[in-house]
């Protein structure tokens, strides 16, 4: 009975659509991803100006179960226009199975794209020489959090090299305090903080990024002397007495989100529990409420110190990447916009935003919080110098990167330096 109404409605839309002719006014483009909460609001806000300008309605829907949902959607053929994956590995996986459209078919200027986002980052979304993944946001892990006021009050200076950092740590221990905060418990992912340390050290020893890439692709074995050297340096931090607040027990038992809390708590003499905490940029979200506003001023970062002075400065980080499922005109327009330097403009100015553009041409002065500006500059510089590297454990096969590597780092923390060889051999043997 409602048929006539429906038909007339359909006709009307057809006529209206025909009148629109050529322009993409009113076209809808759907994106799904793992960003939820305030990140989701930010991502949606990024398209406001774009929609006002082109009339293309971009609707983003985030889900904390995104990775499973997109698998089902791909297999049933009911995909959105874009999916934004938290890891490039998933883009490669989807492209290998033939679900994604190459960026070339979307009319993207590939040279420009590689120039803007660095060939390394672009290379993470490549299958058989064809570029499928669009780089988007990045985060930075090669940073050490500290409080400048505490350093100044005691005459400590920010260490630029590993040796300086060790000297500073010894000085702090001699002054009767603990230099490092270190906690790597994380439900179901315990140990990842130590793998991050390993990666940062690997980037700065041996042949730098070259040996790092070989390590990731298993062109050098996991128990190679270079890796062993990195593990030895890490063990120096974990197992030297009084280096870590609470001792070795605390490393294994402390939830990573609480690990920095001792830095904010002063004892009767006004000394903080620790002075340095190496952790990624997103840790600010785990700080006590009152401390979050001080990110970038009261509590700020220095770059992870260099170890081998002959190697160029490197940066470790993570990032997400999108893939497109079709080459409609509206999809092309959105893809082009997402790869432009302006894409993050509306995101950066938001309060509480923790996402950083991976575009090297992005105007970092737009970031609302001072810490994001520092981090954004570091990322852009590292990308331009082609010394930005992606979290190795995310790139290794999951049996290693999310399995034995994490586990053996936990065991290493418990067992002490004598366990290094066993740990590395075990990881090597678990490589599929």
């Amino acid at each position, binding site marked *: 009975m409602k048929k006539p109404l*429906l038909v007339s409605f359909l006709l009307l839309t057809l006529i209206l659509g025909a009148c629109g002719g050529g322009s993409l006014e009113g076209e809808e483009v759907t994106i799904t991803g793992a960003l939820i909460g305030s990140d989701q609001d930010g991502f949606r806000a990024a398209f406001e100006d774009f929609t006002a300008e082109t009339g293309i309605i971009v609707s983003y829907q985030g889900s904390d179960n995104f990775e499973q949902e997109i698998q089902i959607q791909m297999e049933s053929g009911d995909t959105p226009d874009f999916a934004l994956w938290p890891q490039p590995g998933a883009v490669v996986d989807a492209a290998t199975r033939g679900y994604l459209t190459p960026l070339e078919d979307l009319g993207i200027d590939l040279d420009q794209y590689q120039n803007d986002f660095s060939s390394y980052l672009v290379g993470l979304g490549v299958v058989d020489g064809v570029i499928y993944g669009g780089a988007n946001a990045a985060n930075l892990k090669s940073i050490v959090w500290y409080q400048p006021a505490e350093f100044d009050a005691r005459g400590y200076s920010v260490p630029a090299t590993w040796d300086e950092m060790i000297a500073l740590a010894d000085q702090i221990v001699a002054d009767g305090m603990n230099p490092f905060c270190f906690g790597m418990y994380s439900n179901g*992912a315990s140990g990842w903080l130590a793998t991050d340390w390993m990666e940062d050290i690997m980037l700065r020893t041996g042949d730098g990024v070259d040996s790092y890439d070989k390590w990731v692709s298993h062109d050098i074995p996991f128990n190679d002397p270079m890796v062993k050297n990195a593990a030895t340096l890490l063990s120096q931090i974990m197992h030297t007495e009084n280096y870590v607040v609470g001792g070795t027990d605390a490393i294994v038992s402390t939830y990573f989100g609480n690990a920095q*809390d001792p830095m904010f708590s002063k004892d009767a003499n006004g000394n903080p529990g620790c002075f340095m905490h190496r952790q990624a940029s997103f840790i600010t979200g785990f700080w006590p409420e009152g401390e979050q506003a001080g990110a970038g001023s009261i509590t700020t970062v220095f770059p992870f110190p260099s170890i081998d002075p002959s190697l160029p400065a490197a940066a470790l980080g993570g990032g997400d990447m999108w893939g497109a499922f079709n080459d409609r005109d509206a999809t092309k327009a959105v893809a082009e916009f997402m790869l432009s330097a302006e894409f993050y403009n509306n995101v950066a100015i938001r309060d509480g935003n923790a996402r950083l553009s991976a575009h090297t041409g992005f105007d970092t002065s737009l970031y609302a919080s001072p810490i994001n500006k520092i981090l954004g500059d570091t990322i852009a510089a590292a990308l331009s110098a082609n010394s930005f590297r992606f979290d190795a454990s995310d790139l290794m096969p999951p049996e290693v990167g999310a399995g034995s590597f994490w586990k053996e780092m936990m065991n290493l923390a418990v067992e002490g330096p004598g366990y290094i060889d066993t740990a590395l051999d075990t990881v090597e043997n678990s490589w599929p």
Partner: protein
Amino acid sequence: MKQQTQQEKLKTIGISFLALGFFPLIWFLFQAILFRELTEIISRNLLVVFALIIGSTFVFLLFWGMDKIIKLSPKDNRESLEARMFAGPSLFMISLFLFYPAIRTLYISFKDRYSNDFVGFENYKWAFSDPEMLVTIRNQIIWLIFVVSLVLFIGLVVGWLSDRLNKGEAFFKSIVFMPMAISAVGASAIFKFIYEYRPPPLTQIGIINGIRVSVDRLGTQCMNNRIIDGVFNGFGDPNCLKPIGWLQQRDLTNLPFTENLNPDGFLSSILINLPVNTMLLMVIMIWMFTGFAAVVFSAGIKAIPSEIMEAGQIDGASELRVFRSIVIPYIKSTIIVVGTYMVVTVLKAFDIIYVSTRGDLETNLLAVKMLDEFSKYRNFGRSATVAVLIFVCVLPIIVGTALRERENTQS
């Protein structure tokens, strides 16, 4: 006469095909097409309401239609056809959602990580050789033994004692039963706060560590968490006990009393290697289910005729003797039922581990391992293998229950 039966038989077969095959198929297709069209037209919220109304109407129509068709068949066969009509849909549902997935899981467990190629018994070899998998199986066995026996034992004692109470029995039992009303996720969250650990200079918010770091030990005085001369003393006194990350301890080596134990001795090495975190996680489940067991046992004990109890007492049997020789045999079947329920619950135990440790530091159980292999390591073959293992463990219980059921109906 015989000819007619033959004809009747044919007719019955035709009608049963119509009623149980063709008609439901048409019914299903019609409904599927209708809903596909509806989703295009109306909004999601409205669709839910529609689905409820249309769905239930359709179920009525299905049975009404099948009944109408069956009515056409010869009288003698009608009854068996009616029976099939009622059993049919549920059998169909069970085979679609239970048998089919079970068989397919078994099939996948012989294939590789993406279910492409057959790998024979590779996955099963892995299940019994991979060190992590062995730890998981060890934990599952520890859980089965300790959780089931402790729940039964404590439940029996509490049920028996509460029966002895003169007053306040109902109040006491409702208190003991309360944890059962809390979800496993909630219970795990509560216990996570009890076991919580913070690095030493911080205030311990977990109750066990809170007590640990602020009590005196023999011989030394602990100054933590005290106000001395109007100044609050923090948590930096080295004379106090150190906090312990309870859920991160795989053995007892961090506890002070094990220092004096000889690690080479047989018994003491077992003691030192007790997986503390696994035991503490078992406490959660024991805490949750003891009340349930107690209440069920108490009901069973109440059903014992008082003459038998009195006879025992007159014969001079001690309390313990009455418990052992009268109560236990009398409620044996209740104990078996609760025990069966607990075994199945432990084999399915998922939420406690998932919420508290997510299987880290050797606390994993099979159900969580199954999910890990599926989503973390993306190895469908191994995940299916773990699922099959769980199923194989449950199988004897299903068979046992079925056998007992048969005995009961026969006797």
